[in-house]
């Protein structure tokens, strides 16, 4: 296999700050030109990984390879990476044009040359009219575009973005999300994007990397991570799933019978898993949009799992209705009912319902 110029490989990367382990042996491959999102709660080590790739932090152990060469110990310039900081870190004393031209200035290009390149870059991010403004006179979204232009002007092979959308308001965030993706396609380079918002990660990324306590929990294409979470943590962090904890009643060939409080025996496909015995505790997941709510007394068809529950709250979301149910064993239990379906027979808070789903839509978690 040929090695692309901007592909990244982390091998056993480990980082300790004093007594705390921030990154605990991470292995990951990101192909050249991919959009990769590190997703996790604050303190999970995602920003530390980003800073280690950028060269602002050295790993305590392990290797970081960019384009096939070990870059540990090299300054950012030699790695040909560029980082966009969470606060954007625009230089307040320089105009937009001078900010964007800064990397060229430190490389010794003369004024005429660097302004020419900077102006081309400003055109790309549609900031030409604001070239003479100072960062303090720009809106959050404009500042972000300046930061992006400044990072991209040196033609890095990897662009590292530290929570780039967290300083923006909701509407702008969605708009800038599209812009980031557009820029990534245009530049054709690897983007590593750190975020704690799952919607942002799955909307943008080719590869989503879910992290917890310095370790990678799961990595893969957005759809895979969202629809087939490997464990309870990933399922709950990405949302969109209901997690049920229960005990194995019996193993029948390719499926399991699981018992849980308030639930009739739940059938779960084994999915090729082995070594599960009667009486083991297991977690299973079912997508919120796979739940079908039925009135008590209606016969549940064969091949469907069912849980008797009660409606705790209802939220109208436009395209669907979010129905919050009394959980199984206290966990959160939510159904997303398509709007039109819901209003053919609407429920009230407090109604008893039977939440049902097709047995094969249950997912066994590890």
């Amino acid at each position, binding site marked *: 296999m040929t090695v692309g110029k901007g592909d990244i490989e982390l091998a056993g990367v480990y980082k300790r700050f004093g007594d705390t382990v921030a990154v605990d042996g991470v292995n990951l491959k990101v192909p050249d030109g991919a959009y990769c999102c590190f997703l996790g709660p604050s303190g999970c080590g995602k920003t530390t990984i980003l800073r280690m790739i950028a060269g602002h932090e050295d790993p305590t152990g392990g290797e970081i390879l960019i384009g096939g060469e070990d870059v540990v110990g090299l300054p950012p310039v030699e790695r040909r990476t560029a980082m966009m*900081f969470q606060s954007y870190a625009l*230089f307040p004393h320089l105009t937009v044009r001078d900010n964007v031209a800064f990397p060229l200035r430190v490389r010794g290009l003369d004024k005429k040359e660097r302004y020419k390149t900077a102006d081309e870059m400003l055109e790309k991010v549609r900031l030409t009219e604001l070239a003479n403004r100072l960062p303090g006179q720009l809106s959050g979204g404009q500042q972000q575009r300046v930061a992006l232009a400044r990072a991209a002007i040196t033609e890095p092979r990897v662009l590292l973005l530290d929570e780039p959308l967290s300083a923006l308001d909701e509407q702008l965030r969605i708009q800038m999300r599209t812009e980031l993706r557009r820029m990534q396609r245009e530049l054709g380079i690897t983007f590593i994007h750190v975020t704690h918002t799952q919607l942002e990660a799955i909307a943008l990324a080719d590869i989503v990397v879910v992290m917890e306590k310095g370790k990678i929990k799961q990595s893969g294409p957005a759809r895979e991570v969202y629809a087939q979470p490997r464990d309870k943590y990933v399922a709950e962090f990405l949302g969109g799933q209901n997690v049920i904890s229960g005990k194995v009643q019996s193993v029948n060939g390719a499926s399991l019978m699981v018992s849980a409080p308030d639930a009739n025996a739940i059938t779960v496909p084994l999915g090729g898993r082995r070594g599960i015995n009667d009486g083991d505790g297991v977690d299973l997941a079912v997508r919120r949009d796979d739940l079908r709510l039925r009135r008590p007394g209606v016969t549940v068809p064969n091949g469907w799992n069912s849980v008797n529950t009660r409606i705790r709250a209802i939220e109208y979301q436009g395209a669907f209705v979010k129905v919050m149910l009394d959980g199984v064993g206290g966990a959160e239990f939510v159904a997303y009912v398509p709007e039109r379906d819901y209003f053919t027979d609407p429920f009230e808070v407090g109604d008893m319902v039977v939440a049902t789903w097709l047995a094969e839509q249950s997912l066994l978690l590890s």
Partner: protein
Amino acid sequence: MSVPPFTVARFPARARRRTLDGESRRPWTFWVLAGLFTAYVLALYGPMLCIYVLSLQDVRGGLVFPMKGFSLHWFVDLFTQVRTGDVKGGFERSIMLAIMVTVLTVVGSFLAGLAFRNRFKGDGIVFYLMIGSLVAPGLVLGIGVGLLFQYLGLQASWYTSALGAHLSWTLPFGVLVMFAVMSRFDRSWEEAARDLGATRWQIIRMVVIPILAPGIVAVALFGFTLSYDEFSRSLQTSGPLNTLPLEIWSMTLNVTSPSLYALGTVTTLASFLIIGACLGAIALIQKKRARGISSH
């Protein structure tokens, strides 16, 4: 009441106007505080004004009011008469000393400001030692420096011992100002500059110094003015040649003409010129930065 009807009709309009310019809203405390402030300004500038006014008398002039005539006689006298003392020399020495102190204070404070952004071993001790020299009585400190020089067999002079004594005062001041300025400095600016390929020296030159420039000018201003009019720390440390404040002090003991006041006027003007230049520099920096709006 015998108010004509048309006045009544106009009343609401007038009331609205009054509210707009805020006159009718001022509480009595405004006037008390305004009075207090006026008294404060008078107490602050009144005595100085007396000296400036009295320095403009003619040849018959005395040391007290009333004014006798109006001329620049005593300014001429100041720079021609030998008996008034070595004003020119004192002025030159004070300016030279203040410039040296300013340069050292700016450099020292800037470096200390950079250093104190990180914790280092003994940082607390260094900080309190610095504050200690700030609160130590100046005269005592000056005597100490004088004694030390005598003990070491060195000749005290305005450019060695007095320089040190002044720095013991201006440097902690400068460092405290620098701390305040530094607290608003975002370290990610430096990191970004490094990320974009700047060397250490380029980061200092192109990012740190320009962003901190107004604060650095303020430190320079502090250093200069504190040194220029320092008396107590100079008294035992300036050696055989006097600085200007010492010269003025000795003149108050033996000169009994308004040329003393003329000297006060001239030195004040010099101070104001320097302060004006510094404030002008700060304003220029800010204007340069704000130019983005106008050229847009």
